[in-house]
């Protein structure tokens, strides 16, 4: 086991960039500038990924909701309104930066930054391709779960600092909900972890490569029959974790106006949005790593046949991003279809049903791994 933070410094992409920077460094540049540049570059890439995901996510959300509702969604800016997120983003950037009187100013300003920082932290463990990652974290999934759950602190901070009752309600709901669903989420992920025998996302993906193609994905019952229930649990839990309908209670519009972000405006408000979409995407990616083959897809297999390293990397990246957005689409579909559940129903479901079922899945999955899997020819 390697400390995630240490691994970030030691064997991360920044070190790759670092090495490359040393080779191109002109003489007059001082030595200390190199690691700094490397870190800044890596941060730039992370920000780029998060904002791209957010932009694509918001655009998709509006288009998907539009088409579900028999309308088009944005149409006037660019082809089918694909420039809409840019227009929105610049507009939000230009908006007046407001801090309500009576708000706890330092906390109010800090909260969105904290929320965004935590999602960047989680992004570190996300490998875009087998050989393109910020940090090949051995405990990748732990890193992601830990970092994403720190967003709750930011949200609670935002709710408290806003000095608005709606915000406070939103924050309290968020805290209650996230704590309730962290448990089944973590436990449900134990099942694929046991099947894969790995915490490292890239290794998990590698475990699903092989002659069977897509039929070697862990989701299939012949790999482990407890994977399907585990996936359902995981999916429900991530809906709750990312505050998506039917679990969008913290920002329930018809109840709490805009929940914990009621008082936020302009770019600060968009930070929460970025966090939401990035977290959704990240969880979907995690789901595809553990259940749906990760980098593995017919496309990747095809690329592998050519034996061109770059091509394989690109195919893997395309695969994982596509899978992530497919998950995103599913979440949107649910959001625009289902009504919202009530807070007591959320709690009941989390504690009384999901957690015990997740535990049962772990037991069953573990037993299967010990007793049955070793005898299955296709697993080994």
């Amino acid at each position: 086991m390697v400390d995630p933070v240490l691994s970030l410094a030691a064997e991360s992409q920044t070190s790759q960039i670092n090495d490359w920077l040393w080779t191109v460094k002109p003489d007059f540049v001082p030595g200390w500038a190199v690691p700094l540049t490397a870190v800044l570059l890596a941060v730039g890439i992370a920000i780029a990924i998060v904002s791209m995901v957010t932009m694509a996510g918001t655009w998709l959300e509006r288009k998907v909701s539009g088409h579900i509702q028999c309308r088009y969604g944005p149409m006037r800016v660019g082809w089918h309104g694909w420039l809409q997120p840019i227009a929105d983003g610049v507009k939000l950037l230009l908006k007046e930066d407001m801090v309500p009187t009576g708000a706890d100013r330092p906390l109010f300003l800090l909260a969105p930054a904290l929320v965004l920082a935590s999602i960047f932290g989680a992004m570190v463990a996300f490998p875009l391709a087998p050989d393109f990652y910020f940090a090949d974290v051995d405990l990748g999934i732990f890193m992601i779960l830990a970092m994403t759950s720190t967003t709750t602190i930011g949200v609670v901070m935002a709710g408290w600092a806003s000095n608005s009752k709606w915000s406070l309600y939103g924050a309290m709901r968020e805290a209650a909900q996230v704590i309730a669903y962290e448990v089944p989420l973590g436990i449900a992920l134990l099942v694929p972890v046991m099947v894969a025998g790995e915490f490292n996302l890239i290794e998990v993906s590698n475990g699903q490569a092989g002659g069977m193609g897509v039929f070697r994905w862990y989701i299939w019952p012949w790999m482990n029959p407890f994977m399907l229930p585990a996936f359902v649990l995981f999916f429900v839990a991530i809906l709750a974790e990312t505050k998506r309908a039917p679990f969008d209670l913290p920002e329930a519009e018809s109840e709490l106006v805009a929940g914990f972000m009621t008082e936020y405006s302009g770019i600060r408000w968009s930070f929460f949005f970025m966090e939401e979409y990035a977290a959704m995407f990240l969880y979907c990616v995690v789901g595809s790593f553990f259940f749906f083959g990760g980098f593995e897809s017919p496309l990747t297999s095809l690329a592998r046949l050519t034996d061109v390293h770059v091509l394989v990397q690109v195919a893997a990246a395309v695969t994982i991003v596509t899978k992530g957005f497919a998950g995103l689409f599913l979440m949107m579909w649910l959001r625009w279809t289902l009504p919202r559940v009530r807070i007591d129903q959320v709690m009941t479901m989390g504690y009384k049903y999901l957690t015990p079922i997740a535990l049962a899945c772990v037991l069953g999955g573990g037993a299967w791994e010990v007793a049955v899997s070793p005898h299955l020819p296709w697993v080994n």
Partner: protein
Amino acid sequence: MTSTETQAGSITRTEGGVLPTGEREFMLDVKTSDLEINMGPQHPATHGVMRILCRADGELCTGAQPHLGYLHRCAEKIGESVEWLQYLPYTDRYDYLAAMNNNLGYSMAVEKLMGIEIPRRALMIRTICAELNRIGSHLIAFGTYGLDIGAFTPFLYMFREREWMMALFEKICGARLTYSYIRIGGVFNDAPPGWLSEVERFCDTFDVKWQEYVDLLMVNHIFVKRTANVGVIPKDMAIDFGLTGPMLRGSGVDWDLRRDEPYELYDEICREGVFEIPLGSGERGTLGDCWDRVYVRVMEMREAIKIVRWCLDNIEPGPVIADIPKTLKIPPGEAYVGIENPRGELGHYVVSDGGKVATRVRVRAPSFVNLAVLEAIMPGTLLADAIAIIGSTDIVVGETDR
């Protein structure tokens, strides 16, 4: 049982259940103050500009007080200031979701004073319009209720069908929302050619769509869980609060003015057994809960289609307005007419002293009366339930405030 004095000092809250000994002492030390939260006037759940002052203990709503008057538009003062016919457009604007029905109620009240006979074709068209508008109103009620519960999409689906209905009304009277089509003495003009057959096409399509809505929202598991057993209004409470319309029928009281005090053509329609009166039955929860109220509205849409179909089958050519002078002088007297609006009994109490202007036009607005029950049923529910309850009363603020 322990009771804690809140910081405000005014409310004594009693905890249910028996606490362990240690905990009781602990609870006595805890001083909590209930949170006063202000829903509205600008809040997505208040359906317009109503304000509800909630007292909340965490997620639990311990008290609610509706505050009205954010849309008070002096309709009754205007009623006694302008001429009889001039008041008709103002009737459109109190329950703007069912303007045809409002026109009808006012016209009938004035006609009662005048004692005139309305041509049969006018009655037919009146009934078609009123029932179509009932569908439109219930569509919005159901759609926005979905919105309150958190389902956004059904709302847009329902607006889609409503848009067709708007087009129908536009063809017959030129306006989308505020029609002033049903006049004193009949209707403004005859239906344009082809209108009746288009109404028939609408009915055919709507039957299919109606089933979709029921499948999509009405029997949705989450929807049922959110609305069943929530905001229960028992029968006697409903009567005590003077509730009418779907609110009353949702509580299982079999009362519909169209059948029990038939006006216009409803006597004939009821005799032929064209439509039924849907009642709440506590099918998914308790009798009189939010689900029952919504259920009544949803079923009423289908019944309204049946009435429209009957009218389409029986309509015959003829005049559409009685011979009335341009400037009306209404004989002295007073009359009250209540009709079954989508929201309940819309009453018009008109007093005339024989002149061109009314002495009094009183509007008994169903939303206004139905809303009063909130104070009684909201305490003790969760905040999310409170929103479900507000939605299930289906108020139009234009009507509560007039």
